[in-house]
C-alpha cells in the first residue's frame, strides 16, 4: 500500500481516537519494509499536518488533540523503539516549558510530543520555569527557538521577563520566542504584548511554527 494511503488511514485513526488501529497501520508500514524514518516522514508527518488543517477548519476539542498527540507518540515509539538512545531529532534542538507560575502542562506536553514526532530534539523543562532557566538551557543545547506556554493571562504576562532577558543578552533575532496556550487563542494580540515571535493555535501547528522561527533565527545568525 502506498505511503499516502497509509497516512490517510492513520489520519482517520487519529480522528476517531482509534489508538490500536493506528498502531496496526504503523506496524503494517514497517512490515512492508518501509524505512522507519520514511514512515515518520511520509506516513506520520503528513497525517499531523492534515490534522492541523482540520483544526483550522473545524473545532477539535482538547480531547481529540490529546488523542492525536498520544497516537503520534505511539507511532514515533514504534518507529524508534529506543527513542532515548536513538539519534536525536534532525530538525534541531528546541526548549519548551510552562512559564513561571504556570502549572497547566497538558498543552505543553502535547506540543512536545508533536515536535518530537516531527523530528525535533525536544528539551522539556516542565512547569514553572524561570526566564533564566529557559535561556540557560537554550544556550546549552544550541536551540534557536524557545517555546513558552501559559494558560492564563496573569501567567502569560510572565513571558515578558523571558523576552527582556533575551533582548538584554543581545540575542534578539538569533533566539526566537514561540508562545502558546489557551489564552493566546482567545486573545491573539497577547502574543505581541508579551514579546512573542509567533504562536500556533494548537500542538499540531507547532512544527510549522518552530520551523519558520528557526529559519528566521538562522537567517540573522552570524
Amino acid at each position, binding site marked *: 500500500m502506498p505511503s499516502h494511503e497509509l497516512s490517510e488511514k492513520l489520519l482517520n485513526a487519529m480522528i476517531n481516537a482509534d489508538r490500536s488501529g493506528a498502531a496496526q497501520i504503523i506496524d503494517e508500514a514497517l512490515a512492508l519494509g518501509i524505512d522507519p524514518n520514511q514512515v515518520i516522514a511520509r506516513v506520520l508527518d503528513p497525517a499531523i499536518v492534515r490534522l492541523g488543517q482540520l483544526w483550522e477548519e473545524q*473545532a477539535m476539542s*482538547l*480531547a481529540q488533540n*490529546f488523542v492525536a498527540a498520544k497516537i503520534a507518540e505511539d507511532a514515533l515509539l514504534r518507529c524508534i523503539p529506543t527513542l532515548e538512545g536513538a539519534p536525536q531529532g534532525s530538525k534541531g534542538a528546541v526548549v519548551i516549558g510552562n512559564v513561571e507560575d504556570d502549572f497547566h*502542562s497538558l498543552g505543553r506536553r502535547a506540543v512536545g510530543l508533536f515536535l518530537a514526532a516531527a523530528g525535533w530534539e525536544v528539551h522539556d523543562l516542565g512547569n514553572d520555569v524561570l526566564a533564566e532557566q529557559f535561556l540557560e538551557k537554550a544556550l546549552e543545547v544550541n536551540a534557536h527557538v524557545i517555546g513558552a506556554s501559559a494558560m492564563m493571562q*496573569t501567567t502569560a504576562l510572565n513571558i515578558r521577563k523571558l523576552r527582556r532577558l533575551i533582548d538584554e543578552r543581545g540575542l534578539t533575532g538569533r533566539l526566537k520566542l514561540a508562545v502558546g496556550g489557551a489564552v493566546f487563542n482567545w486573545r491573539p494580540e497577547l502574543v505581541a504584548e508579551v514579546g512573542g515571535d509567533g504562536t500556533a493555535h494548537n500542538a499540531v501547528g507547532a512544527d510549522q511554527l518552530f520551523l519558520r522561527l528557526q529559519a528566521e533565527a538562522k537567517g540573522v545568525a552570524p
Partner: protein
Amino acid sequence: MNAYQRVMNTLTGAPVDRLPVFAVLGAYGGKLTNTDLRTLYSDAGAYVAGQKALQAEFGFDLVLCPFDFSAISEAFGGEVAWCADQVPNMKRPAVQEVAAALRLPLPDPEVTGRLPFILEATRRLSQIYREQVPLIGVLPGPGILPALFVGMDRWMDTVLFDAAGARELMDHTGSFLVSWANALLAAGADCLVFTEGMAAAEIVPRGIFEGQFLPHLAQVFARIAGPKVVSSTGGSMNHVLDLFPGLEGLVGVSAGSRDDLAVARRLLGTELTLIGNLDNLTLPTASAAEVTQLSLARLRSSGASGHFILGNSGADLPQATPPENLRAMLEAAKSYSKEIGCGI
C-alpha cells in the same frame, strides 16, 4: 429589596427591583485590604475581610466562599503554588497514577489541610450576610475533580484510554465531593456552583461528556440537598446544555463567554436561570464604556424574560481588572432594569 431577595426572586421567576449582577472576585478582596494571597487563602478572618471590602466597594449580588481548588488538591496530598497576584494553583498533584489515586484516603472537610479554613470563612460570611446577600460556594464537578490529584495529563489519558478506570476513580471520589458540598451547605452556603471543565466543548466532545461524566454529575447532584449551578469556567457549553434540565436541584447554568445566550435559553427551557456571560479576558483590558456595551448587549438579549443574572463567565477575575469596569456591570444592570420597568 436586598441582594438575597433579588437573587432568590430571579431563581424563582418572581419580580425584582433590578436584575442581579455577579462577579467572581476572591483575590480582588486581598487587593482591597492589602492582604497577601497566602494569608487571604489561609486565614478565615482575612478572607472575610476581603469579601466585606468587596461588598462595601461594589455591592455585587453575591458573596463568595473561598474559591480555591488548590486547597482540594492539597487535601489529597498535592503541592500548592502560591502566587502574588492570582488564586493559588496546584503545583504538583498528589499521585501520578490512577491506581495510586484509588488508594488515597479521602479528605475530611472538617480536618484536612485548608478545607477547615474554607468552612470557617463560609460560617463567618453566613453569620454576616444571611438572607442579606446570597453566599455562593464553588467546587469542582465530578468530572474534573480527579485532575486535582492525578494531574490533568494523567486524568485526560485515563478518560480517553481507560474508561473503566476513570469511572472507578469518579465513583471513589464522588463521596468526598458529596461530603464537601454538604459541609459547605451546612456552613451556610446558599447555593453551590459546580465548575465542570469536562462540560466545555473545548475540552471534550458531547459524546464523552454525555457518556462518561453526565451520569456522575447526576449521581452527585442527587446526594446534595441544596440548589446547584453548573459552570464550565468560561468554556462553551451550548453543545451539552439540553442535557441539563432535570438534574436534581439544578437552578441555573453559568454560560460560556462564547455561547449564544438566546440559544442557551432555548436549550435550557424557561425555568432555569442563566448566568453570564462576560469574558474574563475582556474585563481586565476593555474600557468601562466597552464593558457597559457588552453588559447591555447581554441584558437586552436575555434579561427581559427573567431568570437571568449578568455575570462574568470564568474563574476569579484578575486583580488588575479596573474597578470602573466592575462598576460598569452594575450600572448597566441598573440602567437596563429601568429601561424595562423593573420595580415599577
